[in-house]
């Protein structure tokens, strides 16, 4: 099983599409959590986050802001990652190559699922759970310097409107 996971990780890490997805995630997060709210603030037209104030948009808050915005599209990006990882094997016909190396399909499929979950974990874990926690609606010293102020202004479901 460990061997299969190591094989899957190699496929995933060396694949350009994986890094393209990561780049897309970063671009989207900067656009939705930083550029658009800033445009709303600068334009003064009362956009979705016009009440946020300039200090929440300063570069010091970039990390927190970006992470705060990830859950909005993270699900779909992870879905694409999963489709690419499983679909590629069909498209290239590589299932047969893999399954002649080890015919235990359940083990091979499970390893792929585990690997994708492991890959998704570091991106999704810092962002999704705190967003659901009510404690995060007020600034908390526990959440640390950069992420702290980002949470209060972010509301689930507000960003897609922008």
């Amino acid at each position: 099983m460990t061997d299969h996971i190591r094989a899957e990780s190699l496929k995933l890490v060396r694949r350009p599409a994986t890094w393209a997805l990561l780049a897309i995630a970063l671009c989207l997060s900067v656009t939705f959590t930083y550029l658009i709210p800033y445009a709303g603030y600068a334009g003064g037209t009362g956009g979705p986050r016009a009440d946020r104030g300039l200090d929440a948009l300063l570069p010091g808050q970039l990390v927190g802001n970006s992470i705060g915005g990830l859950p909005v599209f993270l699900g779909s990006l992870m879905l694409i990652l999963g489709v690419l990882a499983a679909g590629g094997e069909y498209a290239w016909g590589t299932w047969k190559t893999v399954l002649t190396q080890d015919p235990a399909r359940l083990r091979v499929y499970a390893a792929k699922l585990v690997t994708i979950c492991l890959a998704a974990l570091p991106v999704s874990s810092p962002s999704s759970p705190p967003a659901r926690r009510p404690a995060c609606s007020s600034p908390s010293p526990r959440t640390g310097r950069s992420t702290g102020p980002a949470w209060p202004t972010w509301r689930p479901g507000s960003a897609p409107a922008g």
Partner: protein
Amino acid sequence: MTAPVEARRLTKRYGTLTAVDGLDLRVRAGEVYGFLGPNGAGKTTTLRMLLGLIRPTSGEVRLFGRPPGRLDGVGALIEGPAFYPYLSGRDNLRVMARHAGVPPGRIAAVLDQVELTDRAADRYAAYSLGMKQRLGVAAALLKDPRLVVLDEPTNGLDPAGMADMRLLVRRLGAAGCTVLLSSHLMTEVQELCDRVGVIANGRLVAESTAAELRGDRTLRLVATPLDAAAARARALLGADAVRVTDGGLDLAVPPARAAEVNAALVGAGIAVSELRAEERSLEQAFFALTGGKTDD
């Protein structure tokens, strides 16, 4: 010792189409077995069933006496090579070695075996067909298998690539590895295999040694006047052995008798303009092996 490959009454149906029909196959340890048949005869379907890639409709398969689901000691290249185009040849083998659970030390060994070490760092997508094919064989050899299944390994290769591939198969056989090889090329199977199974329309229509196949070569004769030549040849070789086709004669005798035939005809005042040993085409072989009962 149990046979490396044993299949009994193997059948695969796709809806109303019967791809493989009650096929019995037995490959003995250490032999190079050729699986010969035209495209669509059911070769690949059979090999896929042997490896457990698809489930037979009925019948059973044993590899080294074991039921399907275990392929340790078995390497395979089915329906052409398939790898990750964005990875280098070496990384592709690294992935497959991990899947197979073999130590990474095997990678350099198999790359060497298929003579791909020089280009191992290049992306698979940039490989020529011959190199892809060789990488496919390399992956099949990762497990240091006792049985190698190769499905049309020379398909799409240029003559040099074909020669390389045949040399590789011969080396495997010489090293004591059992090889099950499918092909639609008569000459290839004759050259490489100890025993040959001929498959047509999903049935094993004949099984023989390569020597038997080779023994059935014929002589092609072109001479004038043709009717006199035919009469003289019939008198010499028997009426059954002579057939008139396409402005010449097909003589069903071993090529070693060419000189004798030639001397007899020339002695009878017949001008012999062409006399050569002829490889039987696959259709002719089918005709001979099945006694004329090919289904199409």
